[in-house]
């Protein structure tokens, strides 16, 4: 493969591209779903293809193919150049750099491909059984997913990089029903880890706990509406970090002045208690990568320090445009998707408060628990986070459980009201789309944070 990828990149350069790369990926996935005691899906999927990229005068041309014959790959190289020539965008040249050479396998203790499929199915059956604690649990769902992504990247820098990314994920989702109420709860474990992640988990406790929480939710109340003191749990704190401050700190949004954070470097944008980073090097975290999809090694980028805005996340192109070093955030979903500036593991750093200390100061408020989803708003900086549930806080004590609600408001206004930040950072893995597609594995998180946030729910 190295020879034909190298030839393809040379052909791209010969046709006048200032920069080009060829990226081969083979992605193997195993996916098992058990529902109510039965194996609903047992699936193995393989995607393999090559994408060729050319850059001419600030515009890009891509061509991808799953036909791995030499002729097909060279044809795609030519088509990428033709496509780039149809661009009208202008931009600075990507600065040249020293070539990188590397060949690495994923740093996992038990590679999932070495574990018999029978063992994985048996584990899922345990997880399924663990959720059946009560007749009110009317539906149980258990999902296991593993993925090994093998990359081979050749670029006009002279890079020749081979690396592997392995991720595993275990999800449990019981549904409880009583009277006219139906509620669900979910929990997950994931990371850039091998099967050791699953072996080390207490599967029975994991499933049982989720089912107990689903049953508890049958008694949950409607959340109060309006602006309240909210203690966000690590998942919801992470959504604020990722969706609003994170997406708006992706430098492609900044270069075109689409981000509300376009001119804030050096300015106080949050409470001095807030420090926020994107770090693709966190061992085992779901968003960690050795290299981004342009061959830049991943790194730790401080975005906010003590409330003062520091800088952005970059691809090769945006770093060249803004005259800084790339940060290893040029990522693509796979060979069939474009490279954008994307996050890795994005989180608020730890403070010094305990949850108990945070609760003590609240006469009336809400403690969030688990997120469902969030949405970015790089233009206006609006925050939207859907919480799976929460708790009422009354006179410093956690009281009634609250059913699903949504938090909203201006992120900058929320972060200026943050008056307590917890001691422990937790990361929550998932996938992130930009707009409504192009999903890459990430994690987001933080500690418990106490702020003023508007909320409401049905």
């Amino acid at each position: 493969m190295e020879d034909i990828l190298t030839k393809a990149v040379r052909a791209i350069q010969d046709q006048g591209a200032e920069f080009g790369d060829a990226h081969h990926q083979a992605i193997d996935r195993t996916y098992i779903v058990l529902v109510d005691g039965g194996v609903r899906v047992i699936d193995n999927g393989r995607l393999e293809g090559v994408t060729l990229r050319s850059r001419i005068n600030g515009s890009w041309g891509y061509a991808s193919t799953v036909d791995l014959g030499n002729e097909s790959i060279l044809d795609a190289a030519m088509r990428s150049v033709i496509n780039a020539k149809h661009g009208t965008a202008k931009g600075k040249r990507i600065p040249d750099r020293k070539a990188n050479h590397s060949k690495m396998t994923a740093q996992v203790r038990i590679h999932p491909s070495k574990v018999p499929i029978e063992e994985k199915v048996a584990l899922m059956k345990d997880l399924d059984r663990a959720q059946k604690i009560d007749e009110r649990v009317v539906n149980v769902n258990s999902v296991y997913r593993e993925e090994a992504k093998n990359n081979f990247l050749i670029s006009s820098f002279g890079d020749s990089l081979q690396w592997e990314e392995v991720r595993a994920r275990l999800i449990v989702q019981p549904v409880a029903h009583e009277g006219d109420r139906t509620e669900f709860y979910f929990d997950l474990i994931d990371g850039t880890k091998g099967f050791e992640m699953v072996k080390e988990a207490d599967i029975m406790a994991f499933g049982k706990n989720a089912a107990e929480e689903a049953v508890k939710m049958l008694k949950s109340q409607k959340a109060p509406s309006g602006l309240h003191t909210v203690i966000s749990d690590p998942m919801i704190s992470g959504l604020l970090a990722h969706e609003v401050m994170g997406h708006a700190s992706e430098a492609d949004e900044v270069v075109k002045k689409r981000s509300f954070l376009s001119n804030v470097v050096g300015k106080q944008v949050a409470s001095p208690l807030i420090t926020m980073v994107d770090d693709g090097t966190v061992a085992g975290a779901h968003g960690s990568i050795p290299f981004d999809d342009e061959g830049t090694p991943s790194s730790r980028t401080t975005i906010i320090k003590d409330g003062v805005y520091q800088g952005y996340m970059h691809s090769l192109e945006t770093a060249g445009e803004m005259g800084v070093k790339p940060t290893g955030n040029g990522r693509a979903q796979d060979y069939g998707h474009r490279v954008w500036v994307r996050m890795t593991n994005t989180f608020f750093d730890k403070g010094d408060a305990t949850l108990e200390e945070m609760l003590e100061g609240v006469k009336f408020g809400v403690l969030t628990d688990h997120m469902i989803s969030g949405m970015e708003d790089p233009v206006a900086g609006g925050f939207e986070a859907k919480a799976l549930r929460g708790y009422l806080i009354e006179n410093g004590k956690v009281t009634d459980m609250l059913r699903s609600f949504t938090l909203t408001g201006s992120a900058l206004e929320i972060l200026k009201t943050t008056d307590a930040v917890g001691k422990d950072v937790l990361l929550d893995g998932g996938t992130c789309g930009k707009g409504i597609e192009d999903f890459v594995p990430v994690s987001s998180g933080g500690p418990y944070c106490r702020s003023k946030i508007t909320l409401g729910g049905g």
Partner: protein
Amino acid sequence: MQLEPIMKKAIKTALSEGVNDAEVFAVRSRTLSVYVDDNAIKNVEEKTDQGLCVRVIRAKKIGQASSTYSNIRDSESCAVKAVKLAGVSQPDPVFKNFPLSEKGAEVPNVYDKAVSAMDADTITELAKNIVASAVTAGKVKVPSGLIRVAAIQSMLVNTNGVETENRNTMIYAHFTSMTEGEMPGEGVRSFFSPHLAGFDTAEFGKHLGQGAVDSMKAIPFEGEKKMTVIIPPIELQELLQSTVSYSISAENVHRHRSVWAEMAGKEVASPNITMLDDPFDAKGMLSSGYDDEGVRTSRKVLIDRGVLKTFLYDSYNAQKAGMKPTGNGIRRSPIDSQNLYRNGVDIDPVNLVVKPGTKSLEQVIAGIDNGLMIGRLASADASGITGAFGLEIRCAYVIEKGAITGTVNHALAAGNMFDALKNVREVANDTTVIRSGILPSVAFEGIEIIGSK
């Protein structure tokens, strides 16, 4: 490469591995995309993709494997993996066989040669037209945009004699606009069609630019109150997908996840709500004569004047219920053309159609004394299990005494979609294709609006 030899090889391999029932779903596509960045053509992409998914039944156990296709060994290894996985699965007492052969399906006209023939010149021209039209709104730019066109061929064969094929083309456009200067407003607009003829780029660009201007003028909504709220097709489709489509899926009915599990024949919505599944509408993104299991599709009334008429079945859930599958086993996507063979079978309407009312949107607005018309939400999803929603309003039009008087933002619309469907004031007639929905704007009574101020 033709799909037939790929599929036949996979079936032959599966049978030689000792199974009696096998199915192959294969897809071939060519996709061309153009991305706009800051009013300029930033990126042109061309993708060719082909692959297959093999499902087998071995001693009542089901296995599945999918793969991109580069050469005939991919077909063989995919079939071998599916058989191996079936071997380690567990017997399913319900699923006995893949669908049986049915002939005579109606074939909708959803393949447009003008779309399949598009090249980098023609697609970039469309994008340039949109930008040129959007910027006429004044001090407006287009920071991002995407037009994707694709020609897709999907085929299904199984050992029961099913051999079906669907061919469709797709145009999907998604653009944002923003005003320049401090406190910018943002507009968003999308377009979905199998055909090029209906894509009026000048009109699309004009509304895109105006959306940013309207949004810039928005002021924060103050207080909390229950109001009449018009939800436009672009947001309503997502809300209905996450609640109605979820609740009429036989899988969710069987798994006790559907709140409508016991509601067949009963009232679940206002009398002015009628919904259908119409797989033959030539405007529909997924219109097809056969679903993605090779079952013939059919027109069905789902909700008739508020009364729930039927659930939708794929072959698995049909066998579980002792019914015939309804032609709603879907693997394809209304906005994507890549890796479709990798998707599992989901139960969905082919096209979820909301029957339009008799009044224009302007007439519906004219009848509202005090309300909002949503311009743009952050995301429009409600819980399929409970129906609860809390939706961040990024721009909404204020309706006072039958006229639009301004725009607001920084608010939440909170409620429950299953309750909201029982409180429909009116259905307009501005039918639009949105993903796999064909639907108009709908005015709901009593939605709680919560301001951030």
